[in-house]
């Protein structure tokens, strides 16, 4: 099987490792080989974080620049910082959220989206913080919203993971009310993604 590579990026603390692990568990449930490479410790304290997810047989842990099929970004500056990892025609699902580093001068949201749009990618700008807030009362699960949306717009990813396996993977990461709400958020974000697909096609 051809490898399928996902790059997860955002700001340390946004739930990037959880997102990587949920995708990893989904693959494991599906019986597909996967490798999820994280970085812990110092790099997590509000720093720029990258998680390499490689689906397919026994690749090395790091994806080469230009090898990524789908970028899942929880923040716009980080999406722009790592966009060169994407292949031509790759999906980029990005949270419509700019979280500037403290004391920094930075490009605006529109500048960033404009730059991303100028590239040969399938760009999906998602209000993931808002979706999470509507369901959970805080942006804490923007990662789940991004995943739900990505599954709707990227058929290859959906066929690999399946919505059912992702729901099961959520059961391994959350319990009680948090599980219920995250399942609901996954579904809502998925439906939003399907709607946007229908509009664009």
């Amino acid at each position, binding site marked *: 099987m051809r490898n399928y590579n996902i790059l997860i990026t955002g700001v340390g603390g946004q739930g990037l490792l959880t997102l990587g692990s949920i995708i990893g568990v989904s693959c494991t449930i599906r019986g597909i080989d996967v490798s999820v490479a994280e970085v*812990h410790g110092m790099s997590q304290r509000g720093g720029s974080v990258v998680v390499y997810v490689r689906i397919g047989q026994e690749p090395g842990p790091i994806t080469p620049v230009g090898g990524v099929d789908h970028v899942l970004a929880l923040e716009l500056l980080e999406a722009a910082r790592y966009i060169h990892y994407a292949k031509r025609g790759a999906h980029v699902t990005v949270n419509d959220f700019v979280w500037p580093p403290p004391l920094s001068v930075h490009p605006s949201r529109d500048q960033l989206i404009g730059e991303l749009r100028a590239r040969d990618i399938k760009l999906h700008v998602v209000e993931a913080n808002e979706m999470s807030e509507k369901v959970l009362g805080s942006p804490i699960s923007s990662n789940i919203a991004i995943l739900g949306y990505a599954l709707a717009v990227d058929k290859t990813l959906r066929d690999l993971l399946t919505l059912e396996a992702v729901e099961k993977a959520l059961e391994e990461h959350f319990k009680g009310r948090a599980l219920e709400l995250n399942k609901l958020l996954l579904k809502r974000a998925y439906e939003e993604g399907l709607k946007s697909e229908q509009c664009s096609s």
Partner: protein
Amino acid sequence: MNYLREHPLLRPRGSRVLLLGNEAIARGALEAGMCFATAYPGTPSTEIVEVLSEVARECSVYAEWSVNEKVAFEAAYSAAIAGVRSLTAMKHVGLNVAADILMSSAYAGVEEGFVVVTADDPSAHSSQNEQDNRWYGLLAHLPVLEPSSAREAYKLVKEAFNLSTRYKIPVIFRSTTRISHTRMPVELEDDVPLNKKCKGTFTRDYERWVLVPVHTRRRKPELIKTWKALSEEERFVTAHNPGKEKVIVSSGLAHSYVREVLEALNMLDRVTLVKVNMPVPLPRKPLLSVLEHAKEILVVEELDPVVEMQLKDLVVTSGYRVAVRGKDLVPENYELTPEAVYRAVAKFIGVEEKVPWEGLEPVKLDPPIPPRPPVLCTGCPHRSTYYALKVAANRAGIRDVIYTGDIGCYTLGYQKPFETQMTCFEMGGSIGVAHGLAKVTNSALIAVIGDSTFFHAGIPPALNVVYNNSSVLVLVLDNISTAMTGHQPHPGTGVTAMSEPTTRIMPETVLSALGFKVYTVYPLDVKKAIEDFTKALEDYKRGEKVAIVSRMRCALEVLRDARRRGVVLPIYTVLEEKCTGCMACVKLTACPAIIVEPGSKKPRIERALCAGCGLCAAICPYKAIVIANKPSEDWVKVWTSL
């Protein structure tokens, strides 16, 4: 760790489970009958003993957070000399702390399997250097095993225990960040055994355990004999497609990249691919048989040329005419990437060096994308401490201060606006370095050290400050946790790794026994903290031996506990009409929750990010920052008590 239904380490044989490399190492050790595990937390090694401590009771094994790596090594080594299989895990620089006993342990050996896991950090993602600990094997005459993936780590650690038992010596197991912190599905081959040896006996063998010179000189030839026997081991080298003139030898993780690159080049069958899982000592026989047919060899390994140098030695002594390439083509610094390995392999094989993956054009904007180094979290107690401390130093009239620093989240205080970490070398270094600088400069010296780091290596240098009489103020930042590695308990928390209550040792008690006049400061109340810091600094200025403990819980733990207990913490907001746009809150806190939108002249506080520490409100000269919600009555308690 997140698996709530059933811990991944407890799943039965035959299960296929997604394991982090460190979890895979822990599970492998359990299957091997290991019963005693020790560590001091350090990225990227932490989760090994962390997950073992989570399942210790169910598996009837013992796990502890030791005070430092030397003590951890001593404890686990002792279990093995008494016949109990044991493991100690540490980050690469941790092994420096334990190096003394490591060297001696090779001479005395063990009675049962003893595995020393060293998790190296190429690219120094979370470390002060990127040393290659395979050298320790050559230095100590101990074997080093190295897996090529997280999955292989699970199998290889079991082999490590068997090797250790067979040769009766410690075995070094070298992982790296990309092994330890990569998740892969692992097929579980065995259950965790119910019956294992957890009680041992100590044989009073003076010639073996008492390394006085006469005994040491008797042990050394034995050690060399074992070393030679180890280099005749054959099982840790495999050759794919043997007999080719071009040979690529790869050790550990490098192997997975080499294979990927050869597949991308469609060249897998053109070369002999040798995979090494025991880089030290390099097994002679399988490599000699490779040399027989080889004309040219490329060695691909992460960091230093450990295999390359041994292989060159083998070429010279065996008399084969083979060219050995390595660090002339493969970078010696930073972790390997598919691109770096591609360029080396392509050049070696003699094909186009341009990588086959084509990335998109990087984003270039004006203003450019700003760098995003790690920063202190919102609500971090260190931010409040650093602010109050600097204001107090000014008030006490202490202008020329050298703030020496240490290892932990608080190291981030080197950044603006705090600049209260001016050195950072190793654990405990803040105090020893301050002592030396106090002796040779006229500056005031404030040594800043975290609670866990203080217990780890801060006590002897603090004692030295008093004994050798230097003008150093010791500041212990006590967030009641080993925060940076994920909130492990330590002697100041009153809890053990296995969640058992134990004697709580306050840094104040230790410091006062060492001869310091100790102040305790609570920076959640910023104004009071400034007053208390000022008093302490005035005493210091008068020449007294002063230590300060600044105590406030880690904000990440506070937020978690508040959520769990249903406590509403304050959330602050900027009153538009009162704010003059002076930016004091932005410039003096660098808090990630305070955001200035492009084009705006006034800051705003991102509600979802505010942790409610109140530092910005205490700083605002116009009282324009106020609480925006209705916090619970007893919210302060979450910040102050466990």
